[in-house]
């Protein structure tokens, strides 16, 4: 590092929080381990400091593989990855990273308090600070009354909450969450969403994977869509869903005036009501036609592309079912 500033932990203070270049991961399969399956193919992306980045993709798309590579749990077949300017192989950097594994499972013979205290020890906190942090985190994830219960008695949602607590226990600069909403009830999802927003307000970088598009749309500054091990697109949700209008939608109750039958032919019935989509330039003409037919107009809204539309458009229904790209035998 030349001109970039560094903090006390020798971490550069400038540049992207997470960057990957040509990151590729192949797994060997079969009895003789002669076949290779590519789980991640040439991933190049950047997550800027302080942003909430959503990693979207269907099951088996390569989201967890990417996160495991970032956490040093698996090793790349090709390419590089850096977090806060330091290579992911640098374990000392883990003081600056929080990680929630997918479907987390922890030592079930420990209580939540003991588990968090155990993890806090690795960050070098003294006994008083550990106690204070553990209490604060349990409160934050809504487990303050369950802290003394062994984890083997926890539900899946409670384990997920403990997982979130251990990920942010040491106030990390970068938080990587693999499917953080998985297994949570609506209240739990809201609490995790609030935690992510709180982290963002505190200037932390959050990368989280999800296949729940609503969460991504609500929380993310930018999203990356991955499928079949390849990055299909990156952008801000607002840019994706907020700019391009796909026409106008009119919701109405039919009348019996002139031309009513002609209009109903083009409309889609929704119980007692009908819905019709028209181009923006044809809106006023369509409204006049409906009024003439004696229809009662209930609402007129702009039809915009949703993140889900974008997602499906990028990956395609067929590709969504593909979990990995086979690259042939050795």
């Amino acid at each position, binding site marked *: 590092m030349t001109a970039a500033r560094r903090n006390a932990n020798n971490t550069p203070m400038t540049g992207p929080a997470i960057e990957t270049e040509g990151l590729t991961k192949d797994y060997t399969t079969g009895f003789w381990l002669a076949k290779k399956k590519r789980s991640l193919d040439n991933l190049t992306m950047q997550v800027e400091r302080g942003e909430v980045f959503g990693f979207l993709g269907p099951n088996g798309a390569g989201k967890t593989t990417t996160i495991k590579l970032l*956490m040093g*749990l698996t090793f790349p077949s090709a390419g590089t990855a850096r977090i806060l300017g330091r290579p992911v192989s640098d374990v000392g950097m*883990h003081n600056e990273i929080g990680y929630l594994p997918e479907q987390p499972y922890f030592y079930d013979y*420990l209580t939540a308090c003991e588990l968090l205290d155990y993890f806090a020890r*690795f960050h070098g906190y003294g006994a008083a600070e550990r106690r204070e942090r553990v209490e604060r985190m349990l409160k934050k994830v809504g487990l303050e009354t369950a802290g003394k219960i062994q984890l083997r008695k926890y539900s899946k949602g409670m384990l997920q909450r403990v997982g979130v607590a*251990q990920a942010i226990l040491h106030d990390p600069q970068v938080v990587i969450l693999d499917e953080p909403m998985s297994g949570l009830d609506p209240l739990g999802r809201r609490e995790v969403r609030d935690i992510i927003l709180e982290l963002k307000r505190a200037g932390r970088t959050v990368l989280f994977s999800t296949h729940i598009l609503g969460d991504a749309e609500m929380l993310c500054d930018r999203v990356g869509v991955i499928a079949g091990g390849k990055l299909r697109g990156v952008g801000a949700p607002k840019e994706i869903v907020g700019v391009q209008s796909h026409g106008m939608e009119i919701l109405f109750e039919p009348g019996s005036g002139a031309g009513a039958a002609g209009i109903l032919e083009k409309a889609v019935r929704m119980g007692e009501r009908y819905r019709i989509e028209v181009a923006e330039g044809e809106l006023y003409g369509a409204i006049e036609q409906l009024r003439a037919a004696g229809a009662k107009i209930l609402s007129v809204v702009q039809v915009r592309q949703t993140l889900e539309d974008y997602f499906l458009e990028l990956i395609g229904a067929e590709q969504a079912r593909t979990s990995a790209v086979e690259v042939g035998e050795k």
Partner: protein
Amino acid sequence: MKRAGIVAWNTFREAVRDRVLYNLVFFALLMIAAALLVGQISIGIEQIVIVTLGLSAISLIGILMAVFIGVGLVSKEMEKRTLYALLAKPVRRWEFLLGKFAGLALTLAVNTAAMATGLAGAMWLVQGSLRAEDAAVLVAVYFILLKLAIVVSLALLFSCFTTPLLSTLFTAGLYVAGVFAPEIRAIGKVTGNAALDAVAMGFSYLLPNFDNFNVIAAAAHRRAIPGMLVAQNTLYAAVYCAIALTGATMIFSRRNLK
């Protein structure tokens, strides 16, 4: 090193919480029964019988624990994925392995110490007192502990690259072969085949030589155990464990966690 200590303490806590030390109840019952029976069936050799039985039980229980808990030290963490959150902390893989090894070694040490105390109680019951010559029993217990440390390091090594079942077979197989290391070494001499002699010699030196750690008979007969043997066995166990743990680290550091 401090982080390895944190892992070690948690490994010990896991063993305690999983009621691993309940085997001590079985050992206590065995010792009480033996102490009551030997007085009636072995006139004049009560002490020899009780020491032989006690040390053999300590060794057998320790070996079973070292093998069956040892092979699960790494594989269980990977299977349950408890390792993921741990390795996301500033913990190096070698620190994790060293901690796991030290944690099980501590568990076995506590377990063995408790059993040795039980054996001392049984000896006191049979003899009416404990004598200075009985210190040989302590040395025998120490050798059993060294042996268990080697077995744990081997179990840990195998569990880094193969399944728990195969790790169990490999570790148990190496233990049995190690007990018979002198016999394996002698195969070439007995057959008179030079090539076989060279192979058998080479193989026997790779094996952990557990025969040197077996001083149960000497302890039972209150024969003094040479200080040189204590030093040699201590050094041998330290080097063997270091080699096995280095191998385990080299394999585990490159392993992808799926």
